[in-house]
Structure formats: C-alpha cells, structure tokens
C-alpha cells in the first residue's frame, strides 16, 4: 500500500514535472512562433492575452470630487461662479456668506469661465464635451451651445469694434476658436502653439492673448520653446506669436493695462543640461514673461536661491496694475508681485541683465512682496471687480480661499466638498502635485506630466552616465497595465518606478513614503488614455482610418509577400493596450545609448504624445517611418506609398 502510494506519488510528481516542463516548452515555442522572436524567454500569457480595456482601473467608476476649476466673479461682486469639471456642475456662491446657493448641471466637464461685462451671460468651456455653453445668469439655464475644437480650456470675452467676441483655447487640437456672439458662431479657427490653455483680453479687447502649455517638438539638441499666440478677435486674425524660449507649462496670462504688459507665468526648463543636481534650478524654475506685445519680452524669475514655487498656474492682476498674483500649484502658495518694483528693476537693468534675469535666482526678492500659503493645489485665481478680494481655487482641497488684497490675510474659505481624502485616487493626486517631494520643492510629478500627460521633452538623467541614454518623457495617461516601466523595461511596477530609484535619480530627497506611494500609483492607474478624437468623430472610423487599421493589422504586403511576425505592428503593439510589454530592437539605438532594446510603449493616445521613440528624435508620427526607419525593423513599411502611410497615421490618431 505504502509502496504503491510512493510509486503513485513519484509518478504524479514526474507527471507534474513533465507537464510543467512540457508546458514551459510549449509556452516558449508558442511565444516564439506568434511573435517571430527567437530571443524571447518565458513570457507571461498576460502580455498578449486576457487583457481588456474594461478591466483597466481607469475604465472603472471612480468617486467624483468638487474640484474647482475656473472662477468668475459677477460685476457687482456678489456672486462667485465656480466650474466643477469633475461633477459636470457649476457652483454659484454667495460671496458675502461664502455659501453655495445653487449648483447647476453643465454637461461635458465645465472648465473655463468668462462673463460678459453686464454679467448676464456666463460662457463656459466644456473640456470633455468639446463645446462652449452659454448660461443665462439670471435663470441659470443654458441658453446656447456651440461646438469648438478639442478640449477647450481657457476662454475670454472681448469687446471689439466688430462686435463682442469669445476667444477659446482648444487645448486638444492646438487651435483657437474665435466666436462672434451675435450671431453665435465661429468666425475663425487659427492655429495656436501646442496645447493652448489660458486666454486673456488685452488692449480693451482689441487683442486676446492665448498662453500655450507645451513646447513644439524640436529634435534632440535644440532648446524647446512654447508660444503665446496673440489674436485680433474682431477680425479673427493672428497678430503675433511670441516665443518663450526654453520655457513652457504656461497656464495663465494677464494684461496690465496701465503698463501695456502681457504677463505669462512659465516654467523655465533645463532639459538639455544633464540632471546632476536639482539645486540652483538645474532641472527647472518658475518665472514670469513680461512682454509689451511688440517684440520686447523678458523672462523674470519667481523662485529663490533656496526655495521654489513649483507649477505656476493662474495669474491675476489688479485693475490699477500695482500687483500681480501668481498661483503655485505645486508649492501651495500664491506669490504677490509688486509690479512697480518690477518695473523699476526693468528700467534700470541693462540688456545683458535682462537676458540673464531668468537664471538669477536672487532677483525675485526685488519684487515679490509676499508668499501666501494656501491649501492643496491652487490653480485658478479671480479678483473681485472692486479689487479688494481675490479668490483662489484650491483644486485638491475642494475649496476656494478668499483673501483680502490689502492685508493679504485670508478672509475665509468656501467649502465646495469635503476634500476627498477618503478616496485613494484623490490622495494620490495630491502626492502627484506635491512639490515638497523634491529637493527645495523645485518641482512635482506634475511638472513634467501636466494632467498626468507629458511635456514632450527629452531629458538626460545622470544615473546611467552623463550624456548617455537621452530619454523622451512619456505620458502617464493610460499607463495602467503596461508594466514594465523605464525605457529599458527594467522597472516591473509603478511602485518601483516611482520609489527609491526615482528619489535617487530625480527627486533628490527621501523616497515617497509607502502609503503615499500606494496612493500615487492608484492615482496613476486611474488616469485614462489621452483623448485625441473630437467628440463629434468618436465611435466611427473614416475610410482612411479604416484602411489604416488594415495596414496596422496586416500580415501580408499588398502583393502577397508575408510580413514576418516579429515585424507585424500588432505583434509588439498588441491591442487593446497596443503593447505586448516586451522590449524590442527596432534599429533605433543612438550613438549615446547603452542598449538597443527598448520597452514597447502603449499606443493609446499616441497622437498627443509627440515626439516619438525613446529619445524623442521623431517629431511626428510620419518621421517614424520616413526618417527613422531602418531596414524595416520597426514594422515593414518599405512597401508603403504615401497613401498607405497616411492611412496608417490616421488610424493611429484614433487610438
């Protein structure tokens, strides 16, 4: 009995071993056959199978929060309107009591607000709905709606000689909708810089300034620059395009009538300099562009030698032009700038001094009057018409802070929600936007990943050799389920990617504590892929996109020649995430790269993630195959004519 038991056990064990060994062998041959790659070892089934979009954390319902976005104060100062994009609501607040008197439903993620001078109409950009809604402020009913470009963010009302206009920054389609109000229609759609974000009227409405967040893709060694697009809203024409050299992430713009200044907060980035340190603004610092809209533009620093005020967002200027207020979303501060002192410095500074001002961290003490602490993530500002109060939207606190402009003391807080701390995604977003995790609070995760997306720049991390392995930043939107991370795929999880290694390489502080790290990764996983298709086009493929889909999934060239499996797009970019999460050699090793195998990126939202390849050398999707293709290693493209390449690109733009 015992013997048979032993024999049986041995046989079972041997069978199990055989099955395991056999299973492994089968698995290896299965993977090698279907990928065409003989270099692969054992690969988890989940790399290619059983993945669905519905299973991703970002596809699941999540708690909504009363995060304030745009603010607008009624002309009589009695009412404050607050856009609550996460809730699809507009909150109407009684300023005196600091209580919400009504919540109005506005579909499509209401984000930016602008009032007409009478206060009768409130114009609301709906970032998720790709539209502008007009609300009658008396009845609080939506009176009109018009389709604009993709993801409209900032909006401004301009009174022009040709009639009233609305200027809308379409952050997702890189253009500006200029609308006439009677009739309510779009009269022009000029191209802006990359990701136009904030709008302000200038010269009494004769001009409108649009600050654009991102820099255009420029290639490996060129310094980036972003744009402030100046338009004539009356005519719908572009008047000038101001270049902010080596600066980006502008989320606000303001006009100072008494000085004819355009002020744009910015982040001065030093992405071409190897990140050997963070101190002394080596990665980035915040600043303010001062422009006369006539060609003279000076960048002035806002940070200090030993402290930084990361992620400058909105700016507000008082009517007299004495003071500007700049919110620091990562530093939980509003900086108060004395414009008279700033003007005095500019008047006596020489040309060289002005040119180098942005790099002089000792300068801001000349004109920064005060740094007001706020609750988490101040993003938008509004001044009361009488100039006595200013309001700060504390986005991740679900509140708006009211401050007395004379004493600079808080008057009270308008509670829109409970702060959302029971939600790990909200807690994680707070970690994400918290500059305190980096040395001297210089930057936060958001500083390179605005809205969890990407700044489109390549950096030189020094940990692997100064000057080696230049890395294009990548989007974190849609990153769930696409492990491993790092350009060589060496970090198996977000926890490891954002853990001690990151503290060593970039943050230069202690690693994020475990509980915060957990919340951070929960937040990252909840970020859906970037949306690149206009609401009106979603759900349907055009003829070209359909043809492109066929090119993408092709197993044979049109002439019947088989495409080797390892070069079929869908092998490495396997749906639904469009990555098989394995490193590949696509012939793109650069002179200063220490590896030729790069982690396969996911393609969801790829159209919004320029530039491309591991070091960002390809400025557009076309260039992946027209310039940087080597021997058909990045998919077989040599047979394609321009029609087919265009179709493929059109398809990729739908992902």
């Amino acid at each position, binding site marked *: 009995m015992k013997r048979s038991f032993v024999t049986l056990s041995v046989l079972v064990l041997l069978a199990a071993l055989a099955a395991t060994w056999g299973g492994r062998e089968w698995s290896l041959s299965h993977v090698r056959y279907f990928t065409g790659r003989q270099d692969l070892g054992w690969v988890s089934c989940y790399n290619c199978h059983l993945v669905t979009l519905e299973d991703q954390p970002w596809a699941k319902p999540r708690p909504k929060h009363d995060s304030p976005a745009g603010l607008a104060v009624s002309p009589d100062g009695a009412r404050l309107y607050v856009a609550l994009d996460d809730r699809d609501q507009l909150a109407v607040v009684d300023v005196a009591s600091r209580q919400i008197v009504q919540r109005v439903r506005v579909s499509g993620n209401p984000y930016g607000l602008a009032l007409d001078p009478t206060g009768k109409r409130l114009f609301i950009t709906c970032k998720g709905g790709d539209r502008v809604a007009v609300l009658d402020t008396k009845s609080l009913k939506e009176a009109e709606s018009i389709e604009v470009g993709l993801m409209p963010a900032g909006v401004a009302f301009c009174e022009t000689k040709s009639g009233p206009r609305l200027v809308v920054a379409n952050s997702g389609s890189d253009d500006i909708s200029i609308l006439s109000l009677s009739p309510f229609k779009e009269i022009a759609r000029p191209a802006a810089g990359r990701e136009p974000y904030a709008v302000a009227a200038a010269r009494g409405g004769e001009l409108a300034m649009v600050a654009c967040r991102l820099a255009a893709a420029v290639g490996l060694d060129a*310094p980036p620059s972003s744009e402030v697009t100046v338009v004539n809203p009356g005519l719908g024409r572009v008047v000038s395009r101001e270049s902010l050299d080596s600066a980006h992430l502008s989320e606000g713009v303001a006009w100072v009538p008494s000085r004819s200044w355009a002020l744009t907060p910015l982040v001065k*980035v030093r992405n*071409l300099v190897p990140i050997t340190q963070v101190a002394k603004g080596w990665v980035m610092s915040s600043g303010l562009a001062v422009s006369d809209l006539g060609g003279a533009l000076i960048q002035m620093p806002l940070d200090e030698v030993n402290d930084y005020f990361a992620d400058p967002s909105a700016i507000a200027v008082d009517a007299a032009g004495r003071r500007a207020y700049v919110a620091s979303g990562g530093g939980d501060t509003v900086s108060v700038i004395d414009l008279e002192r700033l003007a005095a410095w500019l008047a006596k500074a020489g040309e060289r001094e002005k040119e180098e001002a942005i790099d002089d961290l000792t300068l801001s*003490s000349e004109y920064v009057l005060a740094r007001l602490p706020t609750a988490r993530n101040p993003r938008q500002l509004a001044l009361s018409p009488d100039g006595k109060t200013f309001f700060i939207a504390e986005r991740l606190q679900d509140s708006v802070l009211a401050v007395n402009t004379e004493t600079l003391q808080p008057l009270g807080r308008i509670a829109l929600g409970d702060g959302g701390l029971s939600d790990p995604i909200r807690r994680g977003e707070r970690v994400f936007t918290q500059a305190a995790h980096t040395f001297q609070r210089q930057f936060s995760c958001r500083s390179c990943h605005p809205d969890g997306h990407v700044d489109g720049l390549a950096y030189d991390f020094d940990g692997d050799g100064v000057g080696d392995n230049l890395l294009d930043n990548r989007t974190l939107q849609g990153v769930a389920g696409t492990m491993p991370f790092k350009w060589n795929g060496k970090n198996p999880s977000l926890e490891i990617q954002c853990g001690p290694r990151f503290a060593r390489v970039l943050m230069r502080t*202690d*690693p994020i504590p475990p509980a915060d790290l957990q919340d951070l990764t929960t937040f990252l996983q909840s970020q859906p892929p970037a949306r690149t298709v206009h609401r009106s086009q979603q759900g349907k493929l055009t003829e070209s996109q359909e043809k492109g889909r066929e090119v993408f999934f092709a197993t044979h060239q049109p002439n019947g020649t088989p495409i080797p499996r390892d070069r079929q797009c869908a092998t490495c970019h396997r749906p639904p995430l469009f990555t098989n999460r394995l490193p590949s050699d696509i012939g793109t090793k650069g002179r200063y790269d220490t590896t030729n195998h790069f982690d396969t990126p996911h393609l969801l939202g790829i159209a919004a993630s320029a530039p491309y390849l591991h070091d960002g050398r390809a400025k557009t999707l076309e260039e992946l195959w027209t310039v940087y293709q080597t021997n058909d290693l990045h998919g077989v493209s040599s047979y394609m004519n321009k029609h087919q390449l265009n179709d493929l690109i059109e398809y990729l733009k739908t992902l």
Partner: protein
Amino acid sequence: MAPDGRSVLFVGKEKPDSAWQIYQASLDGTAPQRLTSMSGGAMSPDFVSNGDLVFVSPVPAVGGDGSFPKAASVFAQSRQGPPHRLTFNAHDATDLTVLGDGRILFATAFGSTTAAVASAQALFTVNNDGTEFTLYAGRHDRALRIRRPREFGNRLGYVASSADAPSREAWAETVRSARPFSNEERLFAFAKTECASVSDGGGGTYLASLKHGSTLAIYRVATNATALGPALFDDPAWHDIEAVLATPRPQPVGHISAMSPAKPFGTILCLDANRTSFLAADGSVPKAETIRVTGLAADGSAKWLGNVPVHADGSFMAEVPADLPLGFEALDARGQVLRATPPVVWVRAGENRACLGCHEPHGRSPRNHRPLAVRAPLMRLVGPDAKLAQTGSSR
C-alpha cells in the same frame, strides 16, 4: 534640540582633560548619554532626517587651522554604526546646522589664496552624504569667522567676528535664504554688546546669548525690538552660551544618496569654464583651452591629477578621484594660468558634480543647452597613478 522636542544634544567633557564629546539628554531628567567617542573630540551636533547624528570632528585647536586631511570635518553616525566621514574640506569645518531642506550647513574657510585673511570663513552646504559641496553665504570682502549658524524661517542667522581678530567682539547677523549672498542684516545692534549665539525663540523672537555685565546671559528678543529688555536667564557664575526652545520642529527633508561607494571616482562637469567672476582688467574673460586639475595631498601640496581639454563652448568633463579636495587652473593655449581656484571642492564616490563655470556668479541657474563635453569620451584624471587609470571609463 531633537526634532521631537524631547531630548537635547550638547557638547561636553567628563573631565577637564577629556576630549569634548557629544551627549544626548532626555528632558525627563534621566542621565545624559554620550554618543560619540571621537579621538579628537566632537562638537556642533545635529540630527539629519533619518535620525543619524552629524557633527564636526576633531574639535579644532584654538587659534590653529587644521588642514586636509586632518582638518575638522563633518561626520555622520547612526545609532548602531561607527561614524563615517562626510566632508573632505581643505580647512577646518567648524559649526554646523541641519537645514529644513535636509542639507548640512557648516562654516569653513574659503581657502582663497587671494583673500586678505586666509582663515576667512563662509557658510557651505552638503547633502547628508557629503555630496554637492556648495557655497551658501559669505563674501570674500568680509573676512569673518562664523559660529553657530541657525535657520530662522526664511532667514539664516549666525554669529560673526572678524577673521583677523577673532577675539574681538562677536555680533549676530542674518541673511535671507532667498538671496543669501548679500544684504546681511545685523541683529541686536542697539544692544552694543557681544553676542555668542542666536536661535529661534518662537513667536517672532530670538533667543540670544548676549554679554551682561561680565558674563553671557540669555535674552529673548523680538525680531522688531529696538531695545534689549531684561535677561531671560542669567547665572552670573557662568557664561550662558546657548539656549534652544524645547519644542518639536519639522523633521528635515531626507536625501537618498546617489553615491556608488565602491567606485573611487566621481565626475566633474563644467558647463562653461569661461563663465567666471575672474575678469581681465578690461572686463573680458580670457578663453581657457585646458583645465589643469590638482588634488590636495596630505602634505598640503597640490598634486597634479591631469589636464582636461576645454571644448569650444567652454565645457569640460572628467572623472576625478573621490574624497579629495580638488583645485582647478584654467590655462590658455600657451599653458599660462588665466585663473585658478585652490583645492577646496571634492566629489564623493560615484557623484556627478556639475558647475556653471569657473568661480561662477552665485545663485544662478544654467542656460538650457547640451554641453559639448558630454558627447566626448570621458577622461579619468589620476595623475601618475597608472594602476587607477587602467580601470578607466569604457565610454
């Protein structure tokens, strides 16, 4: 005071002829515990974020100025382990404090050969692993001895005395952390009396040790005070040198080290050797062709390590021995020295250290550009030590 406000560190000696060591005393009255056993003594203690003790050792001899490698340096010591050296300063490091951003701030001499007084000090910082040795505050035209630096919100205060006559009366002054290289503000000028220390008294006040009669007493002085009130504490039998508030304070920020301890080299990258505050008589900057790098030897001499070519944009990069004060001479095409800094800066093992220029203007950020030096093969400077050269970089 420890960040939790429950124990205090102090420097003391058990017997008159013992070396000064660091003790920790709990405020509940239990006996103080000796933390250090440094042969030359230890002084100026503080805690870094991970709870390690940092201090200066040895205690510099009065009137003497120790030099590398025996100069008083900053050490760190965890509860369990032995002390390890963080700094490799060419001259004595004297007083230290740990800043809120996690750096260790300490006073040491500029070491400038051109300074009026060789022992003139400035305030420098390092990370808690001894990397990124950087000037925090101090000017060549003010030859000072600096004691007891302390952080006060957005200011940094310390006690200063004249470097060429340190026994003369000392005074307290502060600089703004926003622009520490200028606009020093004197404290307690109305008191017209010697100061031995100043620390944060809470609620907009300072705790200062000021001369009262023939001894030092502790005063609490409001930041906007115009007159000195009565002393807070004065025991006429003793000099009451220093007082600290027994309250919790925020833990300094940490810094996970990027060192590679096994690697005996670090890297120096200079973005533009022609960016300098050393100008020719006509205000121009003579162009450097080569940088001659030296290391401070034990006998105080500068040992030649190697020459690095300067690229067209002024940049240069080289691997250099770690934990050794390094000096730099900028040479023109004929090999003439255009400008020089004595050996004061070190890099730690595996540290990549970059500068804007050669004795660059203070408080500046770099221009956004990719220096040519990072594209060239990396040289290793070892001087005549061929053995070390064999394990050079493979780049």
